């Protein structure tokens, strides 16, 4: 990347707040921008440099870093994402999550690219940021409130009905390991337990309301890029489908791909009769009253629903996306089609990650089915599949750490370690983070979810196209640099290449603040690395090539790996599928009988490590790889630890 005198599009400053002593400082963003891409890219550099190996997630010395996307605050397609990165209470390693966020836009309009929060306030506080005014304000009256009540109270107190707020709910306050952070009631920084880190710092909420703006380096070139991309996205069939049903448009394809968990992944398709009853598209058709979308997005995949009948009558909320349906409705075998709407709203109100809820409750229900967990453990509750009353009660018991919920609040991996009784087999998790991803029958999707540096997940290197019925062997083989026949989801060949490409793509999207659904992750006609390079170059004035984006994002990934080695000791053994995924063939559906073969998995993992330049035995980056990426000293750090 060539250095230029003037750098645009970045706000230029990083805001640092120490909640222990109230110290507020700023530093320049620009010392980071030649080696890192912004947002979560700069965040991992700060976390790696500034967190000693002895720091634990709830230690005041842990830092939680909010990063605005480099393109956030412009009209670039889907550029509405802010990230949060921290040492995760769930995995014990690096975590980062992205969310559609107006707070991010306002943080940038206040003059800050990143917000680095350290220490622990002596009593509950919230942050108020308006340009140069940065205040740590009392939040005693907000503590204990749900996220929705917190947001309503702040909007009322500050006399602004459109005020944008991110906050935690009871789950974050009670240090539930899967607590999340909610933005304006309906969007979440979901995974990894970042809400619990906020709770550990006595930080209830953040309000940003900037009056500045974002200037791009070459307006004409930038707007031309934006308009060309918008046209491509607007004219796509994928967009038409997503506008109507959001991510639920993939319902049939997911069933075909054996990618819908049922009864905690005992099955990966749902019974046809149930599919007819709970088809989420019917719920949208019946209850939609409005739309919901975010800055710059040509797709607009959100819908507002109003439940006017049924057990949850009176509820108005944005519809959930696919993950809620899959991780709660089908995994827990719930037959009431409205449940996904209620479950999403309640999880948002309590501030708890839906995958953590689905993973821990699904594990407990299967253990109950098998007699491993009994009424003695649950305080008399019958954990039967599809029992909505019990599930909703557990949401609250987990979020307030009451009774049996206190155990589940640790997440299924720790819960099974605590109770033992061979319950570990039923934990569907990777690196202690609950999976929502079905691993059998889609090998690049599986590899990406398993090797993910933030634990089980599909936003750091997992190709969506494999499981949503949009395979195009000719074009995909060119994009990934593989043989067309290896695009087949059941082939073990070519998958490391797909994952490594996607690792760069998804990191670049998160750093730039572009929603993954606006990228080639979702549709081959959407934004790829060359288009990202063009947007970034024209916006910032820092000319960058797609190859340079690849290098920078691989640097970022290697530093995430090193951070994980330092804090969580993750190695090759943690890059393996769950015991169930290795032992059981797919039981039903179009792929019935297909099974992951461990020898082929290991050969695929070898190839993945080899392409990355990582040690085959441990999975650690080699000295040569780190030297090549300009991370030479990291090798010594790793080897001082191990």
């Amino acid at each position, binding site marked *: 990347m060539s250095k230029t005198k003037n750098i645009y599009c970045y706000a230029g400053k990083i805001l640092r707040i120490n909640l222990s002593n109230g110290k507020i400082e700023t530093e320049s963003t620009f010392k980071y921008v030649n080696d890192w891409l912004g947002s979560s890219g700069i965040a991992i550099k700060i976390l790696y440099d500034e967190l000693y190996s002895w720091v634990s997630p709830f230690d005041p010395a842990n830092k939680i870093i909010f990063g605005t996307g480099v393109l956030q605050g412009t009209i670039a397609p889907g550029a509405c994402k802010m990230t949060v990165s921290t040492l995760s209470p769930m995995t014990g390693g690096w975590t980062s999550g992205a969310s559609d966020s107006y707070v991010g836009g306002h943080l940038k309009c206040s003059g800050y690219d990143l917000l680095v929060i350290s220490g622990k306030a002596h009593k509950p506080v919230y942050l108020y940021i308006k340009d140069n005014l940065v205040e740590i304000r009392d939040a005693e009256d907000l503590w204990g409130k749900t996220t929705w009540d917190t947001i309503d109270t702040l909007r009322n107190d500050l006399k602004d009905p459109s005020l944008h707020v991110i906050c935690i709910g009871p789950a974050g306050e009670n240090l539930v390991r899967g607590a999340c952070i909610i933005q304006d009631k309906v969007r979440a920084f979901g995974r990894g337990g970042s809400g619990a880190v906020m709770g550990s710092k006595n930080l209830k909420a953040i309000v940003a309301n900037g009056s500045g703006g*974002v200037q791009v380096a070459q307006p004409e070139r930038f707007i031309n890029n934006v308009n060309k991309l918008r046209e491509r996205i607007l004219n796509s069939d994928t967009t038409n489908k997503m506008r109507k049903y959001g991510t639920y448009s993939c319902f049939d394809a997911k069933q075909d791909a054996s990618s819908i968990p049922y009864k905690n992944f005992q099955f990966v398709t749902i019974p046809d009769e149930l599919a007819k009853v709970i088809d989420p598209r019917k719920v949208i058709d019946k209850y939609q009253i*409005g739309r919901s979308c975010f800055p710059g*997005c040509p797709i*607009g995949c959100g819908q507002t629903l109003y439940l006017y009948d049924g057990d949850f009558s009176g509820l108005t909320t944005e519809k959930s996306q696919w993950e809620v349906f899959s991780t709660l409705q089908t995994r827990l075998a719930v037959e009431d089609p409205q449940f996904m709407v209620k479950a999403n709203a309640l999880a948002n109100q309590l501030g708890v990650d839906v995958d953590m809820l689905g993973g821990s409750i699904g594990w407990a229900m299967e253990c109950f089915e098998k007699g491993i967990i009994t009424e003695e453990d649950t305080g008399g509750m019958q954990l039967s599949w599809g029992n909505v009353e019990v599930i909703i009660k557990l949401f609250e018991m987990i979020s307030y750490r009451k009774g049996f919920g206190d155990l589940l609040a640790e997440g299924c991996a720790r819960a099974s370690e605590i109770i033992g009784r061979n319950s570990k087999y039923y934990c569907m998790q990777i690196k202690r983070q609950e999976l929502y991803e079905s691993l059998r029958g889609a090998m690049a999707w599986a590899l990406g979810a398993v090797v993910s540096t933030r634990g089980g997940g599909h936003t750091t290197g997992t190709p969506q196209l494999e499981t949503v019925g949009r395979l195009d062997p000719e074009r995909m083989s060119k994009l990934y640099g593989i043989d067309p026949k290896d695009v087949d989801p059941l082939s073990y060949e070519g998958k490391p290449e797909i994952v490594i490409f996607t690792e760069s793509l998804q990191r670049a999207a998160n750093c730039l603040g572009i929603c993954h659904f606006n990228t080639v992750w979702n549709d081959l006609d959407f934004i790829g690395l060359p288009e990202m390079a063009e947007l970034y170059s024209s916006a910032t004035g820092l000319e960058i090539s797609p190859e340079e984006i690849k290098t920078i994002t691989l640097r970022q990934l290697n530093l995430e790996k090193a951070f994980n080695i330092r804090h969580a000791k993750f190695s090759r053994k943690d890059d393996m599928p769950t015991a169930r995924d290795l032992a059981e063939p797919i039981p039903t559906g179009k792929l019935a009988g297909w099974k992951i073969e461990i020898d082929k998995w290991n050969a695929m993992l070898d190839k993945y490590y080899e392409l990355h330049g990582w040690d085959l035995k441990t999975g650690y980056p080699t000295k040569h790889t780190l030297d090549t990426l300009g991370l030479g000293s990291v090798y010594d750090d790793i080897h001082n630890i191990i």
Partner: protein
Amino acid sequence: MVFEMEECGGCRTCELACGYHHTKVFNPSKSSLHVINRSDNKPGFLIEIHLDNEDGIIGCDGCNDLEQPLCVIYCHKDEVLLTMIQAVITEKASNNKIFK
């Protein structure tokens, strides 16, 4: 002028486009129009469009140098927003006439 726009999804791209039209910076606080959350639980949002300059906000000029207002170009419901902008421009013209 304040309009009810039940079709609005609240993306606020219009605010960015408008701020850019006036200042060549994506600055929503300078935008002539603002998307306001409803407090009555009804669908959509309120669209407040300023006719004149006030408190740092720049009054709507209907993007008279362009074929179509910039906010409209980036709106999912462009036809609905266009009728609002046209109403604002008509009102503005009528106010100017009275003032004269």
